[in-house]
């Protein structure tokens, strides 16, 4: 009824508004309404066409939201055709006298009778796992699984062997779900050949502990190598043989057995070609599915020199003869108990030559130390671990026992301030630890855990300096047959806790109640030997110190998530007691504290492309044995160090605010941040320098250090040049204080770095990658003193490029260059330019490849580094391996 009224109204209005149109125009207009036959609901979007005699459309329109249409027509129009999806098409004869059509369409269940139904078959579920099938992703030329991984989309392998997936470091690498390598996965990827592996799986949100599955969410990503044949006990191996000029050799063999029950990955190798085998056994991932709660043992380290290692890749200056034996096995019993053994043995004999000059600016003087030395190191390293693990849906239990033995003998002839003498350093290090973790399955929602970690370690060192050394400490200054410094420091550490977690979607809570105990001893004596008589050091009686730190802690951890807001709050409460006993100095101190050390992290996402992150952390460090000894220790021939009584305390506030903004449609990415660190310490370093020795003592003096940094980065793709450019910058101000020869010096260090990068594909076979870094550094004293301390400025410019060329399918050529210029006020300008090139010829025969490498093509023979620390400047230079050629053959079976 209602509809009829509107129709009448419509006719009336149109007749009233367009009378001339109706009368004069050649074209006439029809109008109407299309509705469902049964419900009378108007149909929106139905097509109304006027057809000619042949049934072809000559005019058409679609109905509007109210189902109405209006259509002009010409003389040829014969039929009105009305159609709509799901309805039977209607065709009526055009009646020129009729201006309003009321069309009712009948619903039609079946559309297009002649078309067949074809629903799609269901595909497999993928869930959290992303599988890369080796047969789809491996190149013909790839040999090891590392070669394949390097080319997988989204996966990146860094120089040290760590694997990243979409910019996130993987937690671990498993073989058929097992952590065979105990987190030292670098070696495994290089020695396992691709034929053994079916697929490389990336598992996101990986929860390896079955008890915690679907209860505790993780953000961890792991990489799993799925075996081609999990029942094969066949032995396979990869081997390498390389010879080079001048006089270099490399040989290695890696026997491997991989099956579901038994897995063995081993390696034996020797080289004198600058290859560092320690990289192969570096800890890259987690171990035994649990996080590390051990305490890093700190030792006072004696050394033959006071210089630091150069900042160029080790292979350029590593003159070595190294051997490695590594054995990793994992066995699973029928009842699913896992037994694992990991052991590594590493020998090396290497030498390092250097020449250095250090300027010490004092109030009335500048003291120069000049050194020249050749050091021969003979390290031996052995590590072994035995692990038993039960990982079932009902309970998780793991126990690991580890041994670490470390021995090193270094010796060298040194020329110090024109005086030549011989030195020998002996070091022995032993460590034993046991780690136990138990997570039972509980019926209700919470998760309980019991963890117990204990360790014992001892470190023994002896430094002997021969008769030509001038011992410049009064009142015993002079020459002796031998100067001997010996230290021994055993340590015990226990950490036991009980934790309970409440997993929830909105607020995750964890409470951990535990006890930590650390005891460290230090025995040391410095003695002077003359004519077979041991003369004790006169100024103090050495050390027989004990330091203990025991604490009860309660940690509460919350993660709160709202739509745009995320926070992670950690609030540990510690009731701590520290004791320092030094009977030789009649010292027996102790201190109790209640500490709250919050660690807060807040993130706010404005939208998908903008977020703001703020973090705050408070640390309160009370030192350890390395900061609680009163007797002086000769660290090396020109550095003595000791602490006065009292506990060294450092309170550190760290705050950081960062804003990230990207406009990815314009390919623009940026971030900017501000960080502020404020450290309050109750002791300060006081250096007294004489012509041949520097004597450092930490004395009680409240002082602070501030670091303010502003940083930012931009990256933009230039549409016109088809090049990606990036820019990074950081400006840093550091304010600190130090006593030098009893004068308090306030230092200010300003640092500005600017980095630029560009990446361009020139043609399809050439790729150029360029990086440049500029750095300005200046240091000055903030107060005027009598000290003749020049304000120093330095500038360095680094460039790196890589050009790679791929042609004829089997040949691959790569050239890399590293160039640096240093400008320094106090020294001459220096620089270097390293250029490497390699040519690979792949797939000569089945399993056989060859490659030729040329290192240091420009034959750079030495490298100089400048360093600045407060009132000290140093320049050190090192010889580097000159031009070398290396031909390597790889064979696997």
């Amino acid at each position, binding site marked *: 009824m209602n509809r009829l009224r509107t129709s009448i109204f419509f006719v009336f209005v149109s007749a009233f508004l367009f009378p001339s149109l109706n009368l004069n125009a050649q074209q006439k207009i029809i109008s109407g309404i299309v509705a469902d036959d049964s419900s009378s609901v108007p149909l929106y979007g139905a097509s109304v066409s006027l057809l000619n005699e042949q049934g072809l459309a000559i005019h058409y329109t679609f109905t509007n939201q109210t189902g109405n249409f209006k259509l002009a027509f010409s003389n040829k129009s014969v039929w009105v055709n009305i159609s709509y999806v799901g309805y039977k098409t209607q065709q009526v004869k055009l009646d020129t006298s009729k201006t309003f059509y009321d069309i009712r369409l009948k619903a039609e269940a079946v559309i297009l009778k002649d078309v067949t*139904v074809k629903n799609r078959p269901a595909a497999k579920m993928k869930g959290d796992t992303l599988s890369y099938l080796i047969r789809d*992703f491996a190149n013909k030329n790839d040999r090891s699984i590392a070669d394949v991984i390097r080319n997988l989309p989204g996966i990146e392998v860094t120089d040290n062997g760590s694997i990243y997936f979409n910019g996130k470091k993987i937690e671990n690498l498993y073989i058929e779900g097992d952590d065979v390598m105990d987190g030292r996965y670098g070696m495994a990827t290089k020695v396992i050949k691709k034929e053994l592996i079916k697929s490389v799986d990336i598992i996101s949100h990986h929860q390896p502990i079955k008890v915690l599955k679907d209860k505790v969410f993780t953000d961890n990503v792991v990489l799993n190598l799925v075996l081609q044949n999990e029942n094969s006990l066949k032995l396979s191996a990869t081997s390498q043989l390389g010879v080079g000029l001048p006089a270099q050799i490399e040989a290695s063999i890696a026997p491997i057995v991989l099956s579901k029950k038994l897995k063995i990955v081993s390696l034996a190798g020797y080289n004198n070609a600058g290859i560092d085998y320690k990289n192969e056994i570096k800890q890259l991932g987690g171990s035994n599915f649990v996080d590390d709660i051990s305490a890093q043992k700190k030792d006072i380290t004696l050394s033959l020199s006071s210089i630091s290692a150069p900042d160029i890749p080790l292979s350029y200056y590593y003159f070595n003869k190294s051997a490695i034996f590594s054995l990793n096995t994992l066995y699973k019993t029928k009842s699913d108990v896992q037994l694992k053994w990991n052991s590594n043995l590493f020998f090396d004999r290497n030498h390092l030559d250097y020449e250095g000059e250090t300027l010490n600016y004092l109030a009335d003087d500048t003291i120069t130390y000049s050194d020249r030395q050749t050091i021969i190191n003979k390290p031996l390293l052995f590590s072994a671990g035995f692990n038993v693990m039960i990982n079932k849906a009902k309970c998780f239990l793991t126990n690991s026992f580890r041994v670490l033995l470390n021995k090193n003998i270094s010796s060298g002839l040194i020329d110090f301030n024109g005086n030549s003498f011989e030195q020998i350093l002996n070091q022995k290090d032993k460590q034993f630890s046991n780690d136990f973790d138990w997570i039972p399955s509980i019926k209700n929602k919470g998760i309980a855990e019991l963890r117990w970690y204990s360790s014992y370690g001892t470190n023994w060192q002896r430094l002997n300096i021969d008769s030509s050394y001038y011992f410049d400490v009064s009142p015993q200054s002079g020459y002796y047959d031998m100067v001997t410094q010996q230290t021994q420091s055993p340590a015990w550490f226990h950490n036991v806790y009980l934790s309970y977690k409440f997993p929830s979607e909105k607020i995750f809570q964890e409470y951990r109640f535990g006890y930590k105990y650390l005891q460290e001893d230090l025995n040391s004596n410095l003695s002077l030997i003359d004519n077979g008589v041991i003369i004790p050091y006169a100024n103090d009686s050495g050390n027989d110190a004990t330091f203990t730190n025991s604490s009860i802690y309660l940690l509460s951890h919350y993660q709160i998530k709202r739509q745009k807001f995320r926070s992670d709050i950690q609030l540990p409460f510690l009731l701590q007691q520290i004791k320092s006993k030094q009977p030789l100095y009649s010292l027996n101190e102790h201190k109790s504290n209640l500490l709250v050390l919050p660690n807060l992290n807040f993130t706010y996402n404005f939208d998908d492309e903008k977020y703001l992150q703020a973090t705050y952390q408070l640390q309160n460090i009370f030192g350890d044995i390395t900061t609680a000894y009163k007797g002086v220790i000769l660290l090396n021939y020109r550095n003595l160090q000791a602490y006065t009584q009292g506990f060294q305390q450092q309170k550190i506030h760290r705050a950081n605010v960062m804003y990230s903004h990207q406009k990815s449609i314009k390919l623009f990415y940026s971030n900017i941040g501000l960080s502020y660190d404020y450290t309050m310490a109750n002791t300060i370093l006081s250096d007294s320098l004489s012509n041949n020795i520097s004597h450092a003592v930490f004395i009680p003096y409240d002082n602070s250090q501030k670091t303010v940094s502003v940083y930012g980065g931009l990256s933009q793709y230039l549409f016109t040049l088809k090049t990606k450019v990036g820019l990074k910058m950081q400006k840093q101000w550091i304010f600190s204080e130090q006593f030098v020869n009893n004068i308090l010096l306030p230092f200010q260090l300003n640092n500005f770095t600017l980095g630029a990068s560009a990446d361009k594909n020139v043609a399809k076979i050439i790729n150029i990658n360029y990086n440049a870094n500029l750095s300005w550094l200046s240091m000055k004293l903030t107060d005027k003193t009598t000290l003749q301390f020049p304000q120093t400025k330095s500038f360095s410019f680094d460039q790196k490029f890589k050009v790679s060329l791929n042609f004829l399918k089997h040949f691959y050529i790569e050239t890399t260059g590293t160039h640096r210029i240093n400008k320094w006020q106090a020294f001459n300008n220096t620089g270097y330019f390293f250029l490497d090139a390699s040519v690979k010829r792949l797939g000569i025969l089945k399993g056989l490849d060859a490659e030729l490498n040329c290192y240091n093509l420009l034959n750079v023979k030495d490298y100089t580094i400048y360093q600045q620390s407060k009132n000290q400047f140093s320049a050190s230079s090192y010889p580097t391996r000159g031009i070398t050629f290396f031909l390597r053959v790889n064979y696997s079976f």
Partner: protein
Amino acid sequence: MKKNIILLSLLLLSVFAFAQEAIKLNVTYKFSYVRDLENKEAPYTSNMVLSLGKTSSRYCTEKLFNDNDKKIIEARKKEQERLQSMPSSGMTAVVGGPTLTVGKYGVIINEEVLKNFSTKKLIIEAKLGIKNYHAETNLSEIAWTVLPETKKIGNYDCQKATGSYGGRKYEAWFTKDIPYQDGPWKLHGLPGLILEAKDTANEISFTFKEISKNDDTEETTQSFLNSPYSIDTNTKDLAKARKAFETDPKGVMSAQAPNARLYVRNIDNPNDKTVVKIKKYNPIEL
């Protein structure tokens, strides 16, 4: 309280039902496109699927259509819900990674055209490199002129029409037998489904391959490419980014993922890792 929940869920359900219409028909077209004017002999080709719901449609590549079925969509939806509800630190990694998918004619175009005839909206979802983009615009009317020419395509009697869209003049063939005012890509607005279309410069063509019915009500016209991580943009910026990506895909992707290593996957020849270079880019919309 319980009543409220039921009401709310009903309301939500109705919203969903509107946004996700069940597919009635799937129409496959062969798309041919001279993307490089210096290489007219070897145009870019791809099979495309137009999925028609009652008042909405989705147009995407046959590969995307075959790779996505309701189970995967469900799993993905669950995953997204879990990601949003679970506590996590830092940014979330997007599953996938910088794979550059190419074919013998260069980089693969991975774009969806979603038309909604009841809201008169046209949505473009595009994946360029590792990022997904979302652009919305109005479904503008195409002024077609229907002509008296006819031909048979498949089993359908088709009639010719000409009209201009995106700076090109198209000749289209539509059939009254299939009463959808839809067509391949962005073409639409004839009193029947467009089964074939080509531009007068002979650079772009859509030809009919097959048609099939779908009676699985869980298959809807919703987007495959859209995700909570899709970035909102407009069609103009999208066209610019698309041109940059198609002419220099490696450069654009390394700008998007600065530290990641690119992997080139050639669907026509897995051993070929090169990307065919476009010398003179010819945009679809001028």
